[in-house]
């Protein structure tokens, strides 16, 4: 049924995005890249995929400028797709950007809290999370003003409202603010793909649910693991877990009670994928806990984080086997981000002369 009308509005973009997906670097590309002796070689290897964007780089560019240029390509492609999107796809793509927007707003909050000139922070903001009214936020000189402008000027208002008041921005750690917003965002996005008439019951909601559930689980697990040894109380921690996902509600309840790595492992036992991750990570890290995973210097042991990324990429890759779905846009962005991370990582390994860990990139094609 959905196939009947999908292409009327979205056929062109689906084609474009699938084309972009075919432009992603493959395992063979990565193998070639790892053989490079210096960044210039790497640049040459990236030539076919990134040509124009890398042309402006000086010889032997820094890894950060390489990352910036590769991101630029993603951003320009994303903007092209967004500009051509209509209706619910446009809305869907806006939702995609909210995640980056949260990071940007968190950055501005940090700057305002410390009474810095937030205008210079605009350069540091993620371009995908850029919104037109963002410079307006820089006018705010204190946190209350900023809070009000965020409510008025940004699409993030619903995420603030109800869970954060302006005093919270002052008193709570910025990470808690960020994660609260992100939780609200994920829940909203989840609700959106499952309730919007264009998407409910289509492959989009099906695939996106899987992706978002995974994201929710990953965040819940990470927050739990990372909160050990910090002042974050269990009750506060519980508030940061998204209220959906394959772990919800039993898993998240157990997570909220977990005191150590073992507790987290027990909490996620119900989900086969995570169980195997934790078993692998447990073997690699020994009883020392999550902090020692991948052993600091150990090269072959993959960290939990790596395995999550791997899993995310596999789900994203799987998305392209479906048709008539917006989810491919989401997956394409995620795959592309991973590709940028891979390139940066490889460049970093080459620049720092640490070839033994160069293989830690994640390639699914």
């Amino acid at each position, binding site marked *: 049924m959905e196939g009947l009308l999908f292409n009327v509005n979205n056929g062109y973009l689906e084609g474009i995005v699938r084309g972009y997906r075919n432009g992603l670097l493959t395992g063979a590309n990565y193998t070639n890249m790892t053989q490079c002796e210096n960044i210039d070689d790497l640049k040459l290897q990236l030539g076919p995929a990134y040509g124009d964007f890398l042309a402006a780089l000086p010889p032997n560019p820094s*890894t950060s400028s390489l990352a910036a240029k590769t991101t630029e390509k993603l951003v320009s492609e994303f903007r092209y797709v967004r500009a051509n999107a209509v209706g619910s796809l446009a809305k869907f793509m806006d939702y995609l950007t909210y995640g980056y927007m949260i*990071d940007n707003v968190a*950055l501005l909050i*940090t*700057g305002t*809290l*410390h009474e*810095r000139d937030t205008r210079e*922070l605009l350069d*540091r903001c*993620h371009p995908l999370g850029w919104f037109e009214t963002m410079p307006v936020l820089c006018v705010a000189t204190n946190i209350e003003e900023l809070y009000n402008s965020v409510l008025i000027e940004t699409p993030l208002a619903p995420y603030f409202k109800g869970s954060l008041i302006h005093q919270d921005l002052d008193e709570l*750690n*910025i*990470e*808690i603010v*960020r*994660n609260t917003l*992100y939780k609200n965002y994920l829940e909203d996005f989840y609700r959106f793909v499952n309730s919007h008439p264009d998407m409910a019951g289509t492959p989009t909601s099906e695939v996106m649910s899987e992706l978002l559930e995974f994201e929710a689980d990953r*965040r819940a697990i*990470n*927050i739990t*693991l*990372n*909160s050990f*040894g*910090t*002042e*974050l109380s269990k009750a506060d921690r519980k508030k*940061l877990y998204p209220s959906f996902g394959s772990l919800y509600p039993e898993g998240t309840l157990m997570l909220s009670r977990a005191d150590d790595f073992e507790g987290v492992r027990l909490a996620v036992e119900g989900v086969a994928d995570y169980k195997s991750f934790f078993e692998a990570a447990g073997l690699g890290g020994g009883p020392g806990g*999550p*902090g020692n*995973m*991948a052993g*600091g210097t150990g090269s072959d042991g993959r*960290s*939990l*984080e790596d395995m999550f990324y791997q899993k995310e990429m596999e789900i994203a890759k799987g998305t392209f086997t479906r048709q008539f779905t917006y989810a491919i846009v989401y997956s394409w962005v995620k795959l592309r*981000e991973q590709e940028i*991370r891979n390139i*940066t*990582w490889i460049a*970093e*390994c080459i620049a*720092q*002369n*640490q070839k033994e*860990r160069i293989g830690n990139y994640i390639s699914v094609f």
Partner: protein
Amino acid sequence: MSGAGDREPVFPTRQSLGLMKAKLKGAETGHNLLKRKSEALTNPNTVPEITRRIDEAKRKMGRVMQIASLSLAEVTYAVGGNIGYQIQESAKSARFRVRAKQENVSGVLLPAFEAYQTEGNNDFAMTGLGKGGQQVQRCRETYARAVEALVELASLQTAFVILDEVIKVVNRRVNAIEHVIIPRTENTIKYINSELDELDREEFYRLKKVANKKQRDTAAADAEMKKKNAEREANGEKHKAPEVDDSTPADILQAEGDEDIIF
């Protein structure tokens, strides 16, 4: 050289000669000691040891910092963004500090830094809460190790800077003693000696003159005496002295004249 050369402004007396000799001896002893100190500082095990360690540590540092940057790259990878700004803003109180202590090398007090971490203040515990927190913590450990290496290097370097200063001072002193004080003292001694010799010679000459005069006086007195005696004798026993004088020369002349004819 001797008189015109650089010397102490002293009167050339035997007392100052004694003083100068004592000074020279002192300078030589001091020179020996300082030379040994300088050698102790530069030669056997200290400075080359320190510099070698600095050199090594500096080279090692390159490696350590590379590993550390890679771990920061890992954080960027996992967090998926740059955390620099947030880190800069959330830094409040130093967890990693240094303490200075002293070490004695050949009588020179060298400071050494010792790194220590204060307990229980962690400005970045929450960083990367939702994503990449493990990498952040690991990166912190890696960088803490790197900073420890840097602190060690800094101690070595401070030690070197101070030691370098001390060595320079000691060497300057050794050189001053060797090239200025000792030659000058020696010059002074030489000068005093020569002055004293000169005085001696003058004295000797004077004495000789005195002696001569005395002799002459004596001779005159003798002659006077003789004359008086002769006069006395001439009055009494006049023939005695001329008899001896005339007979002997006459004998010799006669004998020689005979034998020459044969030859």
